[in-house]
């Protein structure tokens, strides 16, 4: 009988080597991420050679803790969230080995930015009603249609794209999933400005765009399965990252309180209440990460997404109130600029006022809070679903208002 594998020890040693050879303080982030990927520490559960070590996904927690302690750059996960947080999980579960070898490393090093194109003007919460068409033409597919709210499309090299390939099937069945070259002919990206003035997301138009069949993910007609994987990864990426205590907006709230010099008991107690909520959420995420047996997140990811969205909105609003009249100002002002990396790097570079505005999206992006509650109620708790008028009709016959 062979020795049981000491997975934690293996990961620990790989981390020692990485941090010893590439001291974060003196290594360029891009070089560090490349080395991290090559050491199998990008996603430890992925196979060797594809950014992982083939060990339990629960050990990703160890990596993020050690890298955090060492002040290593980890902001690629936020800046390229649609790739690292979602695309990678999709490629792991549904991609081919060639696809993973081609796309994962430059994704992790941020040489190639990714975007995700699910939502359309007529298909938001109801993604499965999407209308962007892909038609097969030999070894290629020809795509026509429009996507919207596409975060970072203006910076992206690759896009995760879901299309309708069979309008006669019920809506969940006739979809096919692709990776599309965002610079391909016929792709037109137009900025959409948001509440802060910044253009973080875009509209994307497809006019006879050709996608080679080897950029299809999973089977023809299996798009919905891949969509579900993407969305579950997205929820975890948005709300479910394991983070150190006092990080993010609760840390900003604490600083704001400490700097205010206020002794107001009511405010302090309210801050402590919010801190407690955020900490309970953080511990829940840690517990979920430790219990994670497979790399594929389940519908429970909706818990983290739902809690994070409402707490982030509440904490940022409370922080602005703590600022008093200063909260009625916005230091950055409003300019209609496209997002660059710097502004997405970390929330902490934003003023609390701007973070407060940005937080409004948290309960919308990646699936609304109402949809999260439906998922928790129906898929986690097993409550009966709402009567559905659209599920079994052919896609083309569903009412669209």
């Amino acid at each position, binding site marked *: 009988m062979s020795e049981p594998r000491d997975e934690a020890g293996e990961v620990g040693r790989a981390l020692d080597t990485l941090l010893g050879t590439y001291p974060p303080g003196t290594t360029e982030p891009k070089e560090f991420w490349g080395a991290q990927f090559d050491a199998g520490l990008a996603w430890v559960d992925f196979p060797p050679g594809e950014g992982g070590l083939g060990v339990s996904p629960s050990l990703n927690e160890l990596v993020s803790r050690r890298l955090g302690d060492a002040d290593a750059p980890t902001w690629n996960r936020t800046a390229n969230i649609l790739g690292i947080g979602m695309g990678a999980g999709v490629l792991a579960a549904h991609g081919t080995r060639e696809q993973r070898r081609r796309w994962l490393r430059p994704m992790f090093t941020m040489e190639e930015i990714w975007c995700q194109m699910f939502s359309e003007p007529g298909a938001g919460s109801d993604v499965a009603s999407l209308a962007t068409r892909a038609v097969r033409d030999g070894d290629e597919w020809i795509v026509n249609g429009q996507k919207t709210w596409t975060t970072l499309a203006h910076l992206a090299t690759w896009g995760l794209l879901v299309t309708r390939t069979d309008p006669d099937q019920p809506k969940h069945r006739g979809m096919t999933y692709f990776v599309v070259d965002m610079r391909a002919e016929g792709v037109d990206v137009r900025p959409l400005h948001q*509440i802060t003035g910044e253009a973080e997301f875009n509209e994307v138009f497809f006019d006879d765009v050709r996608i080679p069949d080897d950029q299809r993910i999973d089977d023809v007609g299996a798009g919905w399965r891949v969509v579900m994987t993407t969305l579950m990864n997205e929820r975890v990426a948005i709300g479910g990252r394991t983070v150190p205590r006092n990080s993010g907006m609760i840390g900003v709230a604490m600083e704001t309180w400490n700097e205010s010099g*206020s002794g107001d008991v009511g405010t302090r107690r309210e801050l402590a209440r919010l801190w407690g909520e955020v900490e309970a959420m953080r511990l829940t995420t840690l517990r979920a990460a430790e219990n994670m047996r497979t790399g594929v997140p389940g519908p429970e990811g909706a818990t983290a997404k739902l809690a994070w969205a409402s707490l982030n909105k509440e904490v940022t609003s409370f922080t602005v109130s703590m600022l008093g009249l200063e909260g009625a100002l916005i230091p950055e002002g409003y300019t209609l600029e496209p997002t660059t990396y710097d502004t997405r790097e970390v929330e902490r570079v934003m003023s609390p006022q701007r973070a407060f505005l940005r937080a409004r999206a948290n*309960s919308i992006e990646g699936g609304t809070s109402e949809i999260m509650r439906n998922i928790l109620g129906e898929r986690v708790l097993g409550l009966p679903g709402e009567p559905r008028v659209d599920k079994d009709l052919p896609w083309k016959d569903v009412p669209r208002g």
Partner: protein
Amino acid sequence: MLADTVRSFLEATVEMDSVREASLARGAIHRPAWEGLAELGVVGLHIPEAYGGAGYSFVETAIVFEELGRRVVPLPLLSCVLASAAILAAGTESQKARYLPPIASGGCIASLAVFESAHDLSPLATRAVPDGDGWRLSGTKRYVTDASRAEAFVVAATTGDGVGLFFVQAGADGVTVTPTPSLDATRPLGEVALDGALVSEDAYLGGAANGEALRSALDAGVVALAQEQAGGAQRCLEISVEHAKSRFQFGRAIGSFQAVKHMCADMLVAVEHAKSAAWHAARTLEDPEESPIAVPLAKSVCSDAYVYVAGEMIQILGGLGFTWEHDAHLYFKRAKSNSLLLGSVDSHRDRLSDAIGI
């Protein structure tokens, strides 16, 4: 009647696109709306006829604010109400006769320069020192509404005998106005720095105890804001309900989902409460028994209601509600900003606690 007139005037004059544009040009003012409202006599509604106004009670002004709130128009009416209420409460006959008519006609935009720190009315550091026949003012006022478009300010300063209110021309020597980027860009705030600015003896509003006059001016402002909050919240509810009826997902109107329907119902309750609290405060503003309760009540209820309803509106609109191109953010920013202006909600709850004897 008045409400209908103002509403149809605003609907005809104010394109929401122009509101958005004005909000980018810092300190801009919606000129056609301002001139038209001035012509309708709206600016001086609460100012006695003897001083160029229409001589109504504050209720009429409140009606106007409810309508303005529905359209988040960048207009300096709140500033003019604050300044004129201060002059009315503190000025002598001759001061009122001199300073109020230009404000009442809309010809002179005036604002109230009181706050210095982010946290309410901590002791004022701005000082007024007698100098020859007049006074010299030094200090910096912050968070002054419409600072960069005001032609005059009523400035609160300590005189040695307590708070004094002074009428200061924006263009006077020693007065420097700097706009500050505001969360609600449709109501720009700014700094007014007074560096030994010299004003005449007559600029010292000497008709009444100035501390109380200041309080009553701020209370009038809170009541105006409360109406604006109620009107804004009402409009947010309408936008939400219209969207919930017309947006289809999963083959049905999203308003048919109980999650959305219940959100709208809760918003309706909040809006109704806000209107009641705002109206009660407007009607009792002159009542010394009730206004110490009604004013902070209005601030507390209407602030929470507007922030809540505007937030839920964005949620119901989904991605659309998060865009610059949609109107929703204008309301949302106005809601948060209003909750912070003219005394924090907490400070008003402290006043309320005192007033109700707890």
